[in-house]
């Protein structure tokens, strides 16, 4: 059994969590061309080493971030998303051509 420490719920079996992908700041959808958007959505660093990634504690739907070594599977630290996000992110689409 491997433990992951949820910043909200404490150490739990890693089976209680869902992996949520690499952490990358999202480019502004309104100023991104389709090629850059594809790069953001589909392509990954897939680093062999220490990475920052999203995790979700399934039972509480709590999303947080973890620094993990993808070679040794060692978790260096976990922290709340509020360390990186301190204000509401809106996804408002720019008005314009909807075709």
């Amino acid at each position, binding site marked *: *059994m*491997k433990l992951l420490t949820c910043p909200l719920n404490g150490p739990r079996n*890693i*089976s209680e969590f*869902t*992996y949520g992908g690499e952490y990358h700041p999202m480019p502004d959808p309104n100023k991104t061309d*389709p*090629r850059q958007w*594809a*790069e953001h959505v*589909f*392509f*990954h*660093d*897939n*680093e*062999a080493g220490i990475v920052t990634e999203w995790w979700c504690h399934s039972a509480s739907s709590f999303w947080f971030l973890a620094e993990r070594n*993808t*070679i*040794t*599977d060692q978790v260096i630290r976990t922290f709340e998303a509020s360390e990186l996000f301190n204000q509401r992110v809106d996804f408002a689409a720019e008005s314009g051509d909807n075709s």
Partner: protein
Amino acid sequence: MPFGLLKYGLSRDYPAKHHFTPATELKKHYDVVIIGAGGHGTAIAYNLAKYHGITNVAVLEKSYLGGGNTARNTAVIRSNYLTEEGVEFYRESVKLYNNLSNEFNYNVMMENRGQLTLAHSDAAIRSFRWRAEVNQHMGVRSELVDRQTIAELVPNLNMSEDSRFPIMAGLWHADGATARHDAVAWGYAKGACERGVELHQLTEVEDIEVTQGRVTAVKTNRGRVECAAVVQAVAGASSVVAKKAGIRLPIHCYPLQAMVTQPYKPILTPHVSSPHVHVYVHQTSRGEFVIGGGSDPYPLYHTRATLDQRESLSAAALELFPFLSQARMLRQWAGTTDMTPDYSPIMGLSPVENYYLDAGWGTWGFKATPICGVTMAELVATKKVPDIIKPFELERFYNYEQINEAGATAASH
């Protein structure tokens, strides 16, 4: 018999010749450098040498021949995919497999056992019907079968209607098969080396030199090698190697675990797979039951085995084959899978000139080995992308033209 053995022992054929050339110094220059001596890398080298007359080829392997994911997959061969692009590609691969022992004059132990995929829901039956129609249209033997047929195909399958997920129907794929995975890599390496290809084991590519958008050399732990073209065939390390050439890929590496029981007398002929309970089981010609399932839940470059996965694989296998409760587990292992967003491979040109990609082989690499060798060799020799692999180019992700095989792949292998 003892006389036959004695005669062989004294004959000129004994001891048997090595399958490949012993280690030599690296040359200064090769026409083609292939990174990775697994099934794919050696198949590409074999086809370059035999069918295109290109023999100034080095296959560089950081470990040993066929020691990576070639040795770790569960040796399933099938072509009952969902998209026309996928079915056509794997269909050709199965055809080549059927003739591979003759091609090599070397036994790869091909066994046409057939594959049965189980449906435990109406939704699965609908998708199986869809797959069967596409498969038949493309000339692949694939049909939807009812419970009675399933019971005849696999008499020891748990057909109880009281189980948690009762079996409702199946997708029967008579073309499904298995082969000795090591022998496939050995056969290709042997044939390539006989024709002048050099296999360099314990030779790790540390850097890739790109000049004005074109690959010119690779730096290894044994020195620098100039080359006119490079093919990377390093399943499980594709992102890491591509990064050395400055290429970013749409891949995440996940471990995929499997386990095997002690040998038992032959009682299970086809390969049986259930995407719903996440397990597949087949019995090898040696009698062991091979049990595999879905990938690990998060990315990792490590091939450790976990208790969690053993528990879930065992639970699922017992759901299908209760008699396995008495079976003893011999070993459990993992390979590293390059998972792509659409569960299809990435083959062909890359953003770097003369640098070719053979990547994104997720859980479907072994079954594609022969066709991959043929098409990638043709690409390297002619610099023209063969039509059959055109849909799998890296560029498809930028064009939003993915080849979705997620439904025909997950836990089916």
